[in-house]
Structure formats: structure tokens, C-alpha cells
């Protein structure tokens, strides 16, 4: 199968800051691919390079077999894009913007447009200045999905949508997938990616941290186990492959590496199991671990927490900027 997107060793610097540092990303034709990473990891920069809005400093990038910089206009007839921060012309109506963006891509399907406006419950007669963030997002989504592209580049497309609309969005992605299109879905909402994507690429600090199907990635991680036993549980912490143990007399909560699951279960059985629940690893945990480990490597700071803090700090900075 050919690749819809193939990126290798991509480098992009803003002055002395390296936004992308040897990023690799492959999206196969017809697949829905998740692109995960915290704020500032380089997701948007990557998408902008794939659109020919930014120029790469090094590495290779090809989209639908074309050069995203050189062949930008021809390439854009075949793809649709939804930006993360949708900024529209305040004095045009939503309907006008949908048609405009459609015409810039080379036309859109009228029936599909009407259907999507209905499904997203968008009022197309309102001026864009009156739209909320979610409604601006809907305008961009309708314009993209009414187009019928071969490839969809979606940059955190649900960030302003309510759960109902997020479900409509998910349906749209599935329909695009069924129609044979490839989708690159950038997000930090893990459940969304998990529900929609066959494969994911995790990006951290401008570099690919991991890529593969969920099955492949789950092998890297641990199962959470909650157990109650007849006799007190001793010596759990000493077992290989056991982490984050919390023992309360005859009840324990712990996580276990896949490879060591059998041995740990034997230990439980020896204590007389009364109840046992295991939870398969969610992408959430996978994700947290990626940054946890990276954080440990960088000097022991809890990276998951640090990510949250960075986000909060970013928001505050934005607000201050807006006030100034």
C-alpha cells in the first residue's frame, strides 16, 4: 500500500528553537492515523509544513506523492484541512465562508453541504463574528467534509465541540474512512484518537516518540490490577514487573508489565483470590507513561504534571496578552 503522507527526518527551527527535530511520520492510504502529543510538541508545525504554509529546514516530506511546498496548489485540490484555531472573516456569514473555502478547493458537494449543516446544527446565516469557538470550528468542519477529499488533515478539530457534536464529527471521520480517504487526526484527547484511529504516532519535543497500532503499543505498557485476597498480601513489591503498588491489608492495587502477568497471578492465587479486576491499559496511561519516563530521564520532574502546568501557564500568558 502506498503512503498518503510520508515524512522522514523532518526538521524545522524558529530561530534558535528547534520545533521539529528529526520527525518521522507515515500515514498509509485509507487509514485514520492519530497524531498525539502535548501542546508545543510540534503537531501544528508538522501540519503546516504538510500544507506548504511553512518551509521545512531539513528532511523529506511527501503528501499524496507530491511535494507539499512546490505543488501546494495542485495538492490542495485533493486534501481538506481543519485548523486548530479557526479564524474567520468577521463580516462574512458562516454559509458564505463554507462556500468560499469550498470554491477555493475547487468546489463542494451541495447536497453534502446541506446535510452537514443540518447534522452539525449550524446556523449559516450568522456573521462569523457572532460565532462561538465551537461554531467557527463547525464552519471549518462542514467546509472540509463537504469537499470529498482524498486526505483530511485535522488539527485538534474537536477542541470547541460539545460531546454530541464531537460524536457527529466522529461519524464524519468514519464516513471519510469508509469512502477510502486517509485522515491525519492531531489531538491530545486520547479517547477520541482511540475510538477513531487504527494507528497512532506519538510526538514529543519535535521528535517521534512512538508509532504503531494500538496492539503494538499496548505491548509496551502495563495492566492495572485490583485484587482482594483471603490472606494478607505480602512481598508484592519485591516481584519483578510490578509497579505502583498500594497494599491495604488484603486489598491491593498495582500495575503489572505484560511479560510478568502470569507470575504475579500465581502469587495472588497463593493468597486465595476473592475478587480480581484487571483493566487493559488505556492510551491515557500509555501517554502519561511516555512523558513520565521522559520527565524522569530529564531530571525526575513529574512530566505529566509538568505538561499540565505548562498548559495552564500558556493559557495565563494568552489571557495576559489578550488583556494587554
Amino acid at each position: 500500500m502506498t503512503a498518503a503522507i510520508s515524512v522522514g527526518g523532518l526538521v524545522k527551527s524558529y530561530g534558535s528553537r528547534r520545533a521539529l527535530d528529526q520527525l518521522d511520520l507515515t500515514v498509509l492510504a485509507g487509514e485514520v492515523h492519530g497524531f498525539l502529543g502535548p501542546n508545543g510538541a510540534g503537531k501544528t508545525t508538522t501540519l503546516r509544513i504538510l500544507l506548504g504554509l511553512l518551509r521545512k529546514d531539513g528532511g523529506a516530506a511527501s503528501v499524496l506523492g507530491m511535494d507539499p511546498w512546490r505543488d501546494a496548489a495542485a495538492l490542495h485540490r485533493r486534501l481538506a484541512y481543519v485548523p486548530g484555531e479557526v479564524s474567520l472573516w468577521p463580516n462574512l456569514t458562516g454559509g458564505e465562508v463554507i462556500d468560499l473555502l469550498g470554491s477555493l478547493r475547487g468546489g463542494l458537494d451541495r447536497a453534502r453541504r446541506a446535510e452537514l449543516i443540518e447534522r452539525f446544527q449550524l446556523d449559516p446565516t450568522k456573521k462569523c463574528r457572532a460565532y462561538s469557538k465551537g461554531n467557527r470550528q463547525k464552519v471549518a468542519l462542514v467546509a472540509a467534509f463537504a469537499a470529498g477529499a482524498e486526505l483530511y488533515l485535522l488539527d485538534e478539530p474537536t477542541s470547541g465541540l460539545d460531546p454530541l457534536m464531537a460524536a457527529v464529527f466522529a461519524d464524519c471521520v468514519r464516513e471519510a474512512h469508509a469512502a477510502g480517504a486517509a485522515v491525519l487526526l492531531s489531538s491530545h484527547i486520547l479517547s477520541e484518537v482511540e475510538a477513531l484511529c487504527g494507528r497512532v504516532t506519538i510526538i514529543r519535543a519535535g521528535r517521534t516518540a512512538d508509532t504503531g497500532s494500538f496492539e503494538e503499543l499496548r505491548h509496551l505498557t502495563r495492566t492495572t490490577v485490583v485484587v482482594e485476597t483471603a490472606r494478607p498480601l505480602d512481598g508484592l513489591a519485591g516481584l519483578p514487573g510490578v509497579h505502583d503498588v498500594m497494599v491495604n491489608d488484603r486489598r491491593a492495587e498495582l500495575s503489572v508489565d505484560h511479560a510478568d502477568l502470569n507470575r504475579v497471578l500465581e502469587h495472588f492465587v497463593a493468597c486465595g483470590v476473592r475478587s480480581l479486576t484487571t483493566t487493559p491499559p488505556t492510551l491515557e496511561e500509555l501517554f502519561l507513561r511516555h512523558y513520565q519516563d521522559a520527565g524522569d530521564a530529564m531530571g525526575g520532574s513529574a512530566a505529566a504534571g509538568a505538561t499540565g502546568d505548562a498548559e495552564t501557564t500558556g493559557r495565563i500568558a494568552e489571557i495576559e496578552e489578550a488583556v494587554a
Partner: protein
Amino acid sequence: MNALTGTGRLLRLALRRDRFVLAFWVLGLTGFLLGTTHMSVVGLPTHHDVVNETRFMATNPGMRLMSLSAGASIGAYAMSRSYLTVAVLAAVMSVLCVVRHTRQNEETGRDELLRAGVVGPAAGVVAAVIVALAADLALAPLLGLAMIANGQPVAGSLAAGAAVAAVGVAFAGVAALTSQLASSARGASGLGLAGVAVAFALSGVGNMLGHVDASGLVASSAWPTWLSPIGWGFELRPFGGDHWWVLVLPAILAAAFIVVAARYAARRDLGRGVLAAKAGRAQASPRLRGPFGLAWRLQRNAFIAWLVTVIGFGLIFGSVSGSARTMTGNMREWYLRMGGTSHLLDAFFTSMIELAGMMVAAYVVQALLRMREEESRGRLEPVLAGAVSRPRWVASQLMTAGLGATALLAGFAAAMALAAGLVVGGTPGLLRDLVVAALAQMPAVLVIAGAVLAVFALLPRRAVAVSWLLLATSILLSPVFGASLRLPQWAIHLSPFAHQKAPALAVGTGAVVVVLACAVAFGVAGFAAFRRRDLVA
């Protein structure tokens, strides 16, 4: 907590945000009055000159549209020439300031954030008005000082400053009201500026319908002037009686509007206005589809406003052309030198067309800087993510601005020719000559367009400042101003505006080719550089 709780805090925030913007406005207006008054002092060396020029201003209805002569003194003459400009700008400053801190805050969602704190619902509008009033009140003594520095009488100078400041005060009140009426920032400032236009029209008509005393030096207005805040500044008669009591009128108007605005702000929902936002079209018309349609749609309103303005100027200048023929003294020499001909009427037309070229160049700068706004606001991204190449997008912007500029020049020339034809006769010939002469300004306008494109492509973050600086330099170096500043000829030749003298002289085809070549060189550099660079916020 009452409706005004937190006004002090919001006031400090507004002052912090505006510390440079308002300082530029106030100092810029002061510098402008300093300069224009100086030009009057230097340009009218004898009392005889003052009397001649004042009589021209007072007796000519076209000139009275913009001034109300208060007697034969340098101070009064300087006011006749500059009051309207400074007063309108002070009004614009007030309107933009109030809207910036009211509706714009609300539209961008900042107000929501602020109002979630211990802040009363009317605090925002009251704080905004206080900031605008502070700027207006700072303007009064500074403008007075600008005239005193030019050796004008103290009382008249201070009255002149107060006359201008009063217009600003009145429009701070008007904007407080429009910011509550409209439900968008653009609507609020649009309504406020429309108010400025109505005030100008009322005072212009009132002054025109007025009469001149027996000496021919002191004009007085008809009643419509009294309905206009701009007219009140005329009626204060700086250097001609100093009727200070007139200041009561703008004070009452501003106070009344502010109270109404604050009351309404305290009662209404966030984001609501008296005038609800209208629903628009659910589908784009076929004209909007594509980058050219978009460029035109974004320019349309500004273009129409410019067209109305230049046609208005064309009619005014055309209607005074009869008196231009009989001009004497300093003015006559200035036009002759400017026009480069001994035929006074042609010299007058030539200088007016040169001025129109500069105005239209300002339109082009504003139109093309839209490119930067589209880019920095993130609206270029979805356009280029469509099947639109960068050259095609730039071409659509250039084409729209270029066609607009051509229409503005032709419209100005046609209006001037029609009005002048009524006064001096020979309309068909005038129409042809003046339109050709005006279109001969296009190469110069295109040089500015090319330069703005190059700056946008090469220095995106500095594009706005550098583009306006280039235009200002070109204007300062041009024959209209360069000669008055006694600049050497080679410096004047650097300005793109220095190379055509039609209709006084035939259109110089050599100069057209050379100037166009410069425009093309800038344009090609701009196209090439923009193809190669990243989009930057």
C-alpha cells in the same frame, strides 16, 4: 457592588494598553498643528498677504465648506486651514479609543473575563470614556502651546486648543452611546465615524449657507452649524472673539450620552446591543467564490468610503477652480511653482491631481496591508490550504487594489472636471484632460503598491509601520511638500510622485516607463520573496 465597581482598575488597564497609542495621537496632532501654523506664518509674511488669503477663504463657498474665517490674523487663518483636519482626527481618536475599551473588549471575550471579577457592568464604558476624555483634555493645552510657540496670542491659542478638544469630548460621548447601540466593534466605530461625517456635513453646509461681513474677512454661519459638534468649534471663534461659553454644548452632550450609555450598559446582557446583528446570506453569491471575489468583498466597504471621499474632494476643488484663476500673491506663486506652468488654472489642477495621487496611494497602502492582517489573524491559512497558489492570492489582492486605485483617480478627476466645468466652462475637454492627467499618477501609485508588497514579503512583522513610513517619505519628498521644505531637486526626484505634471504639461511617456519599471521591480521582488517564506503570525 454597584454598576461602577472596578472602574478604577479598568481605567488603569485601559491606560496601560493605550499609553503609546494615545500619546502618538496627541503628540501627532500637536506636531501637525505646530507645522501647519508655521507654514502659515512663513507663507504670509505681510499683513497684505494675510488679508488677501483670508478674503479668499471667507468669500469662497468651497473653502467655507471647510472653514469659517474669523478675521484677518495669522492665527485665524491657520485655524481656517487646519481646524477641520485636527478636529476630525480628535473625534476619530475619541471614537476609536472608546470602542477599543468597550465593544472590542466584549467582542474578543476579554470583557467576559474582566466582568467575572469584581467589576460592575457599567465600569467598562465609564473607564473607556474617562481615558478618551483624558486624551482630549491633554490635547487642549498642547494644541494651544503649538500655536503660542508660533507667536500667536495666548487667549486665542488656548481657545483654539479648547475648540478642538471639545470635539473630541463630544465624540467620546457619542462613541459611548454607539458602543452600546451596535453589537460589534466594527458597527460601533462605524456608527461613531458616521456621526463624525454627519457633523462635518452639517457644519459644512451651515458655513456655506452663512454670509460674510462687509470687510470680506469674517464669515458667519447659518443655523445647521449649531447642530454639529464640529460646528461648535467653529462657533467658539478662536482669534475672533473667543466665545468660551460654547464649550457648555459639548459638555452637556457628552454628559447626557455617557449617562444614557452607562445606564443601558448596566441593564443589558453581555454581547447584546440595541441594534441586533442581522442575519446574512446562507450561501455565498457566485461573486464571492475564489480569491478575487474574497479580496473584493474584504475591500468593498473601504473602497466605497474612499470613492465617496475623493468624489467629494473632487467636487470641492473643482468648484473653487474659478477663484483659483484669480488668485494673487503667495498662493499664486505656490501653485505656479508647483504646477510648473504659467497658466494658473492648469497649475491648480496639476497640484490637486498630485494630491489625489497621494491620497489614492494611501488607499493602496491600506488595501494591501490587508494581506498582512489576513496573515497575522490566521485567515490566510485556510485560503492557502485550498487550491490557491501564493502568486494567485497576491495577484488577487494587487489587482483589487490597483483597479480600485484607478477608479478612485478617475472618479476624483471626473468630479473635479464636472464641478470646474460649471464654473469655468469647457466640460468635455476638461473631463478628458483631467482624467488622463489623473491616470498618469497610476505609475507612482503602483510604485507604492510594489513597495508595500515587497515589505510585506520581506519584513512581515514590520510591514505596517514600514509601509506607512515609505508612503510618508514619498509624500514629504514630493514637489507639493518637498519644495516648501526647500529640499534639493535630486531628493524630490526620489519621490514617485515627482515625475508627472499633467495637465500643465503633457504626460511624459519616458517617465511613465521608468516609474513603471520601478514598480515592476518591487513587485517581482515581493512575489519572489513571498513564495519562499513561511507564514508568520
